[in-house]
């Protein structure tokens, strides 16, 4: 109790100096929190924009094995889903790029049809969520499709208009099928192309020599996709099938994500070093300033451990107020940033993720920095004899 009382007395008797320490901790924690939350959010936004409603793992036949057909074993799909809780969705899938779309008198437009084995595939691509539906309604009949809002706007295709899709069979026979556009969707994500739609196998034209060429999988945490992919490999004959992750398919995105993590770490490291230098200098100065008091107390019989406790408690008390102030300041600053960065309609351009993890890490880094700085100063003071301390 005595070290605590002395620590409090030391703080209140040097208010300006201690406010300076608190202020430097506030700045440190605030910046740490701002950078962590901002970079974490941006990293997640990039990941979300590139991996959401998209394939995280693709199991497909090896390109050279043109005659090999991926076994369409639905029990295997169910087994994979049940044995791997990290997998959120799995579907058989065909990716057909040789389709053209004909609308009214416009020239034929190159189009992609993503065929899934059942309606779960719509959920896989986010086409069952109301928020993505920009007009019309979800298809209720086999010959109804949704188009991307961007594609429909570009070619001025209205809801309930009819379009003709032309498929090319492997033997180069052309198959035509008419589909009614019943709505438009926008996932709000970055895409290479918006010329695509998703249909189920039974919506394909009759006579189309169809086979699934892939199994597509989504996982709960796209960053940990490799672990799941390794397990998925055990279900297949890898001499005929290859298992690829989104990181292998779009390595630049993965690289960008890793680069962001490294840059954030380096910025945090440099800020921690800067805060360490500032805080250790001020605390060191404070310990030096109190040398005589330390000497007097030690001469009167206060044990070394209690003297250390006084300064540690002093640092912890200042650190506590600094950390609380820093977190509040950092949060307020981020809120202001969110409010400033808005689209024309007033909606925020970026929604910061105020994850508890960012609060804990920011405080943890600064707490460690402050403690280390204090311990170094105390250690230095402990080495000096009582007589020297009193003479100071």
């Amino acid at each position: 109790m005595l070290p605590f009382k002395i620590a409090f007395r030391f703080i209140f008797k040097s208010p300006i100096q201690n406010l300076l320490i608190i202020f430097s901790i506030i700045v440190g924690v605030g910046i740490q929190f701002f950078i962590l939350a901002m970079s974490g959010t941006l990293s997640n936004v990039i990941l979300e924009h590139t991996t959401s409603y998209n394939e995280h793992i693709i199991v497909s036949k090896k390109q050279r094995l043109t005659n090999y057909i991926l076994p369409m074993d639905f029990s295997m799909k169910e087994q994979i889903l049940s044995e791997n809780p990290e997998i959120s969705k799995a579907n058989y899938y065909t990716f057909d790029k040789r389709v053209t779309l004909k609308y009214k008198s416009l020239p034929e437009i190159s189009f992609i049809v993503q065929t899934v084995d059942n309606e779960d595939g719509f959920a896989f691509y986010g086409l069952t969520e109301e928020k993505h539906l920009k007009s019309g309604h979800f298809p209720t009949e086999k010959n109804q499709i949704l188009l991307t809002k961007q594609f429909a706007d570009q070619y001025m295709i209205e809801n309930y208009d009819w379009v003709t899709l032309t498929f090319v069979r492997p033997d180069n026979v052309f198959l035509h099928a008419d589909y009614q556009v019943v709505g438009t969707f926008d996932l709000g994500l970055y895409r290479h192309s918006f010329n695509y739609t998703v249909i189920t196998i039974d919506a394909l034209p009759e006579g189309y020599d169809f086979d699934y060429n892939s199994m597509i999988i989504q996982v709960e945490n796209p960053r940990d996709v490799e672990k799941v992919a390794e397990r998925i490999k055990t279900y297949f004959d890898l001499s005929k099938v290859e298992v690829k992750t989104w990181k292998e398919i779009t390595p630049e995105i993965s690289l960008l994500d890793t680069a962001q993590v490294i840059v954030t770490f380096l910025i945090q490291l440099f800020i921690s070093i800067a805060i360490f230098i500032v805080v250790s200098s001020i605390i060191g100065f404070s310990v030096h300033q109190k040398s005589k008091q330390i000497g007097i107390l030690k001469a009167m019989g206060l044990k070394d451990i209690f003297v250390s406790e006084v300064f540690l408690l002093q640092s912890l008390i200042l650190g506590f107020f600094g950390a609380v102030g820093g977190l509040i300041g950092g949060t307020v600053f981020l809120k202001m940033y969110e409010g400033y960065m808005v689209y024309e309609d007033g909606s925020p351009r970026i929604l910061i993720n105020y994850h508890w993890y960012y609060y804990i890490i920011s405080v943890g880094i600064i707490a460690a920095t402050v403690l280390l700085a204090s311990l170094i100063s105390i250690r230095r003071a402990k080495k000096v004899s009582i007589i020297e301390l009193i003479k100071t």
Partner: protein
Amino acid sequence: MSKQTLIKIKDITKTYGTKVKTAVLKDINLEIEKGSFNWIVGASGSGKTTLLNIISGLDASTSGKVEIEGVDLVSLTPNERARFRANNLGFIFQFHYLLPEYNALDNILMPLRIQNKKIDKAVKQRALDLMKEVGIDHVHDHYPNQMSGGEQQRTAVARAIIGGPLLILADEPTGNLDSSSAEAVYQLLRALHQTYKTTFIVITHDKINPAKGDRLLTLKDGVLIKDVIY
């Protein structure tokens, strides 16, 4: 009734430096009686303060032994030494060395807090009574920077005595005071000695009336050259 020995100092030497050695104390042998009032005098650099620091365990001797009530301070661990100081010794320094963060009353109570004693109303009243005794009850809530030099030193005296120590060590307690304040402090120390029967060792530069003490020890160049008992 035979007098009891409180401090036994045997063959104490203190040397500073490794390449060039400077002997500050040379073979000091001394016994101090319990309840006695002792002066140590000598010129600057004669080793008075070093001797006091070694007796109190604040400094270590190069060789020799100091025992207080049969306890060899050198053989104690730093924590045991700290506890021994807290329970048995009171210090009065030349520059009062009060804690600037505490008022006079809290400064006086500090040794009791270090001894882990409960500070209740009765203890506070005792401290206030002691302040009255040393003539500073009117500044009990003043901080050191709000007190005169004499008041500060009286506070330091009250702080040294409140814990009921076996021994009070005073290192030039009047070195920073004018002559009238210095005389007043000496009178106070003598009065407290009479009242509390505590052993005092007082280092001084000032001309003193040795009859106002039990013993006068004179140091010169680290050697005890004169030992007069009154």
